[in-house]
């Protein structure tokens, strides 16, 4: 038996096989994560007349395992902007903490004179709905500023070959109080559009959203109820077809009155009748 310190607590080689030494990078270039571990799937969003609706489901998958079913992937920044994260969940946590620090810094610079007392403290309390009124004077970072900042951050990490493995949607209002919606991903690619989606949503949900909001003018005609319905429809379709999705989701509506965030929504009116018509898989032989 090998009693040396390096073998303490180590399973025996003759029983379990030797360690795979290729995991120990003793030489060669240093490199960071090459693939995400615990991931969130699509985030979808659409602009409407007075603001933006954004939604993401509450699932964090560990590969093909639906591991965590209460993960909130919509995070609120400074009560005025919602950031939706798809991709690696630990990177999402890092960014969330980082943005929290940024929000605290911003509130230092903009200590308000007359503050309304109606603000919730933490955005992740277990209640399903939280309405936040803007405690946020004119000087604070708006969605456009935040998006630019994230873009710089993610691009910088990409250049360092150490990316934050996320695809992010930023929803809010810009400096002129017009609805703002933009995407930024792990490579630092950033763009804006009346409707956006990450991951599977880009293939499945975008065509649906584009039927209603192909251009900015069309989006500006949508009402809030219409926008919410479109999003709910898309979330349903994603649950039908995205194998790494869940029927519980979070949805947020951002307007100049603030953020209305619901975190325990359940998909309704699902119809799985079409499943019977699918042939050729499993035990069915006809």
């Amino acid at each position, binding site marked *: 038996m090998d009693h040396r310190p390096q073998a303490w607590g180590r399973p025996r080689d003759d029983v379990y096989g030797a360690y795979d030494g290729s995991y120990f990078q003793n030489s060669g270039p240093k490199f960071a994560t090459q693939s995400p571990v615990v991931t969130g799937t699509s985030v979808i969003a659409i602009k409407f007349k007075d603001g933006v609706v954004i939604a993401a489901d509450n699932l964090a998958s560990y590969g093909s395992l639906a591991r965590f079913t209460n993960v909130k992937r919509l995070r609120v920044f400074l009560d005025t902007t919602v950031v939706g994260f798809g991709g690696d969940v630990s990177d999402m946590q890092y960014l969330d903490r980082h943005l929290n620090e940024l929000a605290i810094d911003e509130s230092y610079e903009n200590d308000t004179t007359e503050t309304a007392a109606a603000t919730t403290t933490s955005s992740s309390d277990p209640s399903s709905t939280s309405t936040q009124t803007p405690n946020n004077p004119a000087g604070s970072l708006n969605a456009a500023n935040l998006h*630019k900042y994230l873009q*710089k951050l993610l691009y910088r990490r990409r250049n360092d070959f150490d990316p934050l493995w996320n695809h992010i949607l930023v929803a809010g209002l810009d400096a002129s109080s017009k609805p703002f919606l933009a995407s930024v991903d792990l490579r630092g690619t950033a763009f804006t559009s009346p409707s956006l989606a990450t991951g599977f949503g880009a293939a499945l949900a975008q065509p649906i959203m584009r039927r209603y909001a192909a251009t900015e003018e069309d989006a500006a005609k949508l009402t809030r109820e219409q926008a919410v319905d479109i999003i709910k429809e898309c979330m349903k379709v994603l649950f039908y077809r995205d194998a790494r999705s869940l029927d519980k989701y979070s949805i947020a509506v951002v307007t100049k009155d603030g953020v209305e965030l619901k975190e325990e929504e359940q998909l309704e009116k699902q119809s799985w009748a079409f499943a019977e018509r699918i042939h050729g898989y499993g035990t069915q032989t006809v």
Partner: protein
Amino acid sequence: MFRNNYDNDSVTFSPQGRIFQVEYAAEAVKQGSVVVGIASKTHAVLVAFKRNAEELSSYQKKLFAIDEHVGIAIAGLTSDARVLSNFMKQQCLGHRLTYGRNMPVRGLVDMIGSKAQINTQHYGKRPYGVGLLVAGVDEQGPHLFEFQPSGMTEEMVAFAIGARSQMARTYLEKNLDAFADCGREELVRHGLKALKESLVQDRELTIENTSVGIAGVSKSKEDGSSVVEPFKVFDGQEVNAWIESVADDKEGGGDAAGEGEGMDVDA
């Protein structure tokens, strides 16, 4: 050479709790020529009286644009002012590139305040020998800040620093209530009148020795977003019209109360 035992460096308190080096630095500010700043609801204005070393030499520039939306007026050691203004320019540019917006003026001013305060608390450093008036506009409107060598920064409605600036401040205090609603031209005229209060008996404002800097902000009619009138410095012929418009008034008689001449104190 030294007035007392406690003025050798800025890490020494006097028995009364004063730091003499910082107070001496403030003297350096008083040696610089006078500059005046005023902020209204829509504009922030800086006016400066420039000096020349000799008859034929150029006049020392006193107003500098830091960014599109911020400008400064200096009084005191010009080289110290350059260090601070370079720092401010870098901060503004970095902020713009990172966030895509004008840097909020208060944050910028707080940064130079902190920078200057460190120089008053560590051995081997000396306080900055320059006072600044920082005029800028942001989402909340126009602002005017005073920066002192001690690191103290305060937002003002109007202020003046430099040689004999107390006379200008007296004028500003008398007309304080009028400034908020002044238009652009009126504000510049007030600034120049305040400046004139601080001039020596036989001196006049000319196009060579006067500088004017203006920044403004207004709400766009279409979508309510802020439209910035970029900070611009006016010299030479450009200030002629303004100088003429205040030339008719008696020296020191330009205040609303019409209380007659202000006191002209010799250098």
